[in-house]
């Protein structure tokens, strides 16, 4: 019974990891950019939510209304002003520029908010739980987070395959120069992809901040969780990303149960095992 509970908790956390991963996978898919600042942007969103919540005195979940559009705007401008200039055949510029951004965001947050760890208070909902059966209960908040994650991923899937902007994303992903030939403005498409990525980052950041303590230094670990989920899931579909997140969450939950020091290590080891045995991920892209 205990193990079932642990695995269930792991699955629910996995939803959050899948959301870290979705934004990363999205921009990699569209423009082959790996954003090393991704984790720090999640933390930035958490701090934005903190400021909004404290200034307006509203529930953290309501702060999404402000934080999501704000992060999307930051993403659009960031892509247009800086990141578009780094794209090309050379791998170095995008990696080093986003690495620089990561250091800037992290130390900027440290200057503004100190290294103290913070948390958003969501009120009574934090301690509510849903009874699933004999001695098996899940917190309402983790459950909401998981449902939101599934909804975000389903939404992305619909957006990719059912809408005009999704078609533009897939076109630039397949062949940038042909996409331009048929009249797409790549700079704009890339900026929209980054805006969408950071909108997801905003949701993930706020949910993270409600769930656990955060401080300016935790960004890189979130990047790594998202990355591991992407690679484990395979680069095929967003649903693979969800599976990757869940595997990571469950591995960490089991590791933590064996020894508190093993929580993170177990997640990394699961990733390395998948990389060793199935480097293309568990749900690779179907060719054709």
């Amino acid at each position: 019974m205990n193990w079932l509970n642990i695995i269930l908790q792991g699955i629910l956390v996995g939803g959050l990891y899948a959301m870290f991963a979705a934004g990363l996978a999205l921009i990699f898919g569209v423009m082959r950019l790996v954003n090393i600042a991704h984790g720090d942007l999640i933390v930035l969103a958490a701090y934005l939510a903190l400021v909004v919540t404290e200034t307006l005195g509203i529930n953290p979940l309501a702060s999404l209304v402000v934080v999501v559009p704000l992060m999307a705007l930051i993403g659009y401008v960031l892509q247009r002003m800086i990141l578009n200039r780094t794209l090309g055949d050379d791998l170095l510029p995008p990696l080093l520029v986003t690495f620089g951004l990561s250091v800037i965001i992290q130390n900027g947050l440290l200057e503004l908010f100190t290294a103290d760890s913070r948390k958003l208070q969501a009120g009574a909902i934090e301690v509510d739980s849903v009874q699933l059966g004999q001695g098996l209960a899940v917190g309402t908040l983790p459950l909401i987070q998981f449902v939101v994650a599934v909804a975000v991923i389903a939404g992305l899937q619909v957006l990719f395959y059912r809408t005009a902007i999704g078609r533009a994303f897939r076109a630039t992903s397949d062949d940038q120069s042909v996409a331009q030939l048929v009249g797409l403005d790549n700079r704009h498409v890339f900026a929209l992809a980054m805006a969408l990525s950071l909108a997801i980052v905003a949701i993930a950041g706020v949910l993270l901040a409600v769930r656990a303590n955060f401080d300016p230094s935790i960004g890189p670990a979130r990047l790594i969780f998202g990355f591991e989920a992407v690679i484990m899931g395979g680069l095929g579909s967003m649903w693979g990303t969800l599976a990757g997140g869940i595997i990571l969450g469950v591995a960490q939950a089991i590791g933590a149960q064996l020894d508190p020091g093993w929580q993170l290590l177990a997640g990394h080891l699961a990733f390395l095992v998948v990389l060793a045995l199935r480097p293309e991920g568990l749900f690779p892209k179907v060719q054709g």
Partner: protein
Amino acid sequence: MSAAFHVEHATRSSRIGVGIFAVLLIVLAAAPLWGDRQDLRLLAEIFGYVALASLWNLLAGYAGLVSVGQQAYVGLGAYLLFALTMLLDVHPLLAIPMAGVAAAIVAVPVAGLIFRLRGHYFAIGTWVVAEVFRLLASQVSALGGGSGISLPIAIVTSVAPTRQMREFLIYWLALALVVFVLGAIVMLLRSRYGLALTAIRDNELAARSNGVDVTRTKLVVYVITAFGTATVGALIFLQKLRVSPDTAFSVNDWTAFVIFITVIGGIGRIEGPVIGTIIFFLLRQTLADLGSLYLMMLGVVAIAIMLKAPNGIWGLLAGRFGWQMFPLARRAVIAGLPQQAKT
């Protein structure tokens, strides 16, 4: 037709460069005569960063393996030094190269795993490896676990009996190590591997089609870099006398600074890390009080350079004046023909 030519590496500027280096080396070797303890510590730290940045430059600038996880090998070298001396009673000075060799052996299977990650994802893969090493190090309770451990006095005095002799010795070791690293990189770049590496740097596809075994070359560079980085890490922590997972595997100290140094100085050029380190320390001596603002400024400068002058400060100078500080150019000198230069 017989091959009536030979390849010259030196140019006028590289002869001047090597001359300046020789003089500088003598002055630096004599630093215990003219400098105080602070000077020696600072200089040893500078040597450490020149070595680390040169190694990262070899990896990222030449082999195209952009690692953001070289702290894995700095930390591994540091922990191996402490493990070898404290648990196996190896003499510290012997433990330094042993740490390098052991790290190189570890690097082979690690490369087998992370080379499966293409391009950009390789970078984050290296970070995962560094995290795994850090977490494993904090599980070793014999070396202090998460809070770290100091080197026992008996081992410290086995380096040299007096504090002053110890400081001189570690200083000279740091100087010798940076000269060794730079010398080894120059030799490597002048060898067949160097030609292959330069080809990979300029165009990986073209290098492959000319018969360069790209994967093998990259593996060799990765392992060599691991050896060098761990050796430098071991020496740095012999000077610090204390190790902990957070300091040994610090991404800021051993990767962010190193990347900024190389990018600002000039990536893909051997002179870049040297110039970058000098600029880095000049800035740090004047702006150190700013703390995290200083790091932000470095980040901004590095981004600006990456966007506006991707070859860094040395790249600008070399492009403008055709300078090279080390004899690395390849120029065929053919009897009876005007010289043709090719870098």
